[in-house]
């Protein structure tokens, strides 16, 4: 059964990737697409090679990063509502990105992602300080995260109110967009994901134990405070690098782990890879649809993934409710 699920979702990823390469303001038929992929000098070469292919790669990489970050957080906090968004990571990154957009509008283009990454790690440090070095209970920890997120959120709101004439760029970044992402963004995201993803997978035995609760974990010989630190750092890094390159998309980190958990259960050796693939699939299909519904404009991928993911999330909550009630 699990094999079928994995084969199917990988197949879906390939189909969505092809779809993402072929649809857009300029639609490219599959034979033309094939021809452009093999030969570099057709009339569609630029669109395929320089525009859509890097977008596809970034969709997949950031989908991986956000989804796996969400898996780790949900197991760590033992709360199905946990996600990089909820504990304030994306808000911190968003605030720093907004600062750059408003205060240093002419800065070179690598400053913005660097600032966003800094914001995510600043939230991490604040989490450490305010949760008494992670000794608080998971619920209290989540609440601290929410509080930090709220502060940064109000910071973003303040900037939006202070500079009302120039908020378009910020709003686009905050909703999460793949517009204009090219190979240079791919190459700054790729090494991180390539390293962090296997590291995350290797943590599966610990995450499996974590799910059981603090007492069990301690009885089973886990140094929970120290492990929490490393796992949290891992989760922050994955979300941070992803958000730095695609903007603050929070929803993938919440929804992809849930879909995966429904399909293969809570064992992390399966959960982590499946959530990653589902995260990538959501990004790919969200971006493809966002590119074609209001041509010549684009709907930011963050908005599309929420539109696609939200109905499922409501369904999930209702099912949970029925089972318990």
């Amino acid at each position, binding site marked *: 059964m699990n094999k079928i699920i994995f084969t199917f979702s990988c197949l879906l990823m390939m189909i969505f990737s092809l779809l993402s390469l072929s649809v*857009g*303001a*300029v639609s490219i038929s599959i034979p033309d697409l094939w021809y452009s992929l093999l030969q570099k000098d057709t009339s569609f070469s*630029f*669109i395929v090679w*320089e*525009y*859509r292919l890097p977008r596809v790669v970034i969709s997949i990489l950031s989908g991986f990063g956000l989804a796996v970050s969400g898996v780790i957080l949900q197991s760590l906090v033992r709360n199905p509502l946990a996600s990089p968004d909820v504990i304030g990571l994306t808000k911190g990154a968003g605030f720093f990105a907004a600062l750059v957009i408003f205060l240093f*509008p*002419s800065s*070179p*283009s*690598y400053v*913005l992602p660097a600032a966003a990454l800094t914001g995510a790690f600043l939230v991490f440090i604040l989490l450490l300080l305010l949760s008494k070095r992670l000794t608080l209970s998971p619920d209290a920890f989540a609440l601290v995260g929410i509080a930090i997120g709220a502060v940064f959120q109000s910071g973003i709101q303040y900037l939006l109110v202070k*500079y*009302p*004439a*120039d908020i*378009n*760029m910020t709003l*686009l970044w905050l909703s999460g*967009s793949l*517009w*204009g992402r*090219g190979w*240079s963004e791919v*190459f*700054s995201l790729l*090494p*991180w994901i390539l*390293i*962090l993803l296997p*590291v995350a997978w290797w943590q599966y035995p610990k995450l499996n134990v974590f799910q059981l609760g603090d007492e069990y974990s301690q009885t089973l010989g886990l*140094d929970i405070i*120290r492990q929490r630190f*490393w796992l949290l*750092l891992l989760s922050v890094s994955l979300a941070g690098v992803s958000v730095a390159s695609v903007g603050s998309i929070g929803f993938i980190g919440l929804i992809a782990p849930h879909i995966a958990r429904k399909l293969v259960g809570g064992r992390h050796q399966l959960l982590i890879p499946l959530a990653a693939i589902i995260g990538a699939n959501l990004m790919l299909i969200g971006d493809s649809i966002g590119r074609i519904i209001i*041509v*010549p*404009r*684009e709907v930011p991928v963050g908005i599309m993934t929420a539109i696609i993911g939200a109905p499922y999330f409501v369904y999930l909550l209702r099912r949970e409710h029925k089972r318990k009630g």
Partner: protein
Amino acid sequence: MQHRMKRMFGFVFMSIFILSLIACGNADENESKEEALKETKKETIEINHELGKTVLEKAPEKIVVLEFSYTDALMTLDVQPVGVADDDDPKLFMDKVRDQLKEYTSIGSRYEPNIEMISSLQPDLIIADLNHHKDIYDQLNKIAPTIVLDDHQADYNQMLDNYLVIAKALGKEEEGKQRLEEHHQKIEEAKQKIGETTLTVLPAVTNPKGFFAHSDHSYTGSFLLNIGFDDPVKSEDSYPQLGLEQLVETNPQAIFLLPATEETIVDEWGKNPLWQEIDAVQNNKVFTVERRDWALSRGLLGSEKMIEDIVKHLGDQ
């Protein structure tokens, strides 16, 4: 455990190392590109712009522009663009530009122009804005030679400089200079008609949510300053938002409203007794003009229309 910690630190350092390598690699690439450009022959058009130097083999024919002010400039030089980022709303062009503009393809929002469509138009020159498009400069450059100007933050004088750069890029440097001369004459003539410019004048974009003054740091404000009017706001910001009380405190002697929507906050303020305290209101010098003329078409045509409006409303009667 210690072993594991070491491993963790190891990978963090490795990733930083790899990233910095990549960053260095990119920097090298850019330099070699610039060198390659320097070696090209004469008889070409060489343009220095915000993000480097661009060399054109010949005067471009298919031009894509990503700001309203660039369309304004193209019209004065009698050049038709093939693609314009017009926010997908042709109503945003000022009338004079729209009348002259023939067929073009809308390539969407000025903030996120549709790069696929730009590519499919196969342009031979793209004119972009520093703030909005610096992140996609590399991609645009792969489509066609791209020049990047600082338009979004430009004041009136910078716009005039930008105008000459555009004229040069189009291979119409002489015509551009002539047109600019004509522009200065028009402005001078209009100034004569206005006569005394002792008033403090405040232009402001209004919508249902607020009143956004254009200070002397903004394009419109800097133009008024250039004519000789005084800016009553004296703000560090280009577009400070004012409440009614602040507006009364600022007390401009003339106000030009540039409504972005049909109903604005000023409809509400008009009923407030405080509104009557403002000098401009008492002197009957509150005027409504088109936002597309005053704040969007930041070019020669736009500013000529602006001063025409000013002559009409504030000129010697």
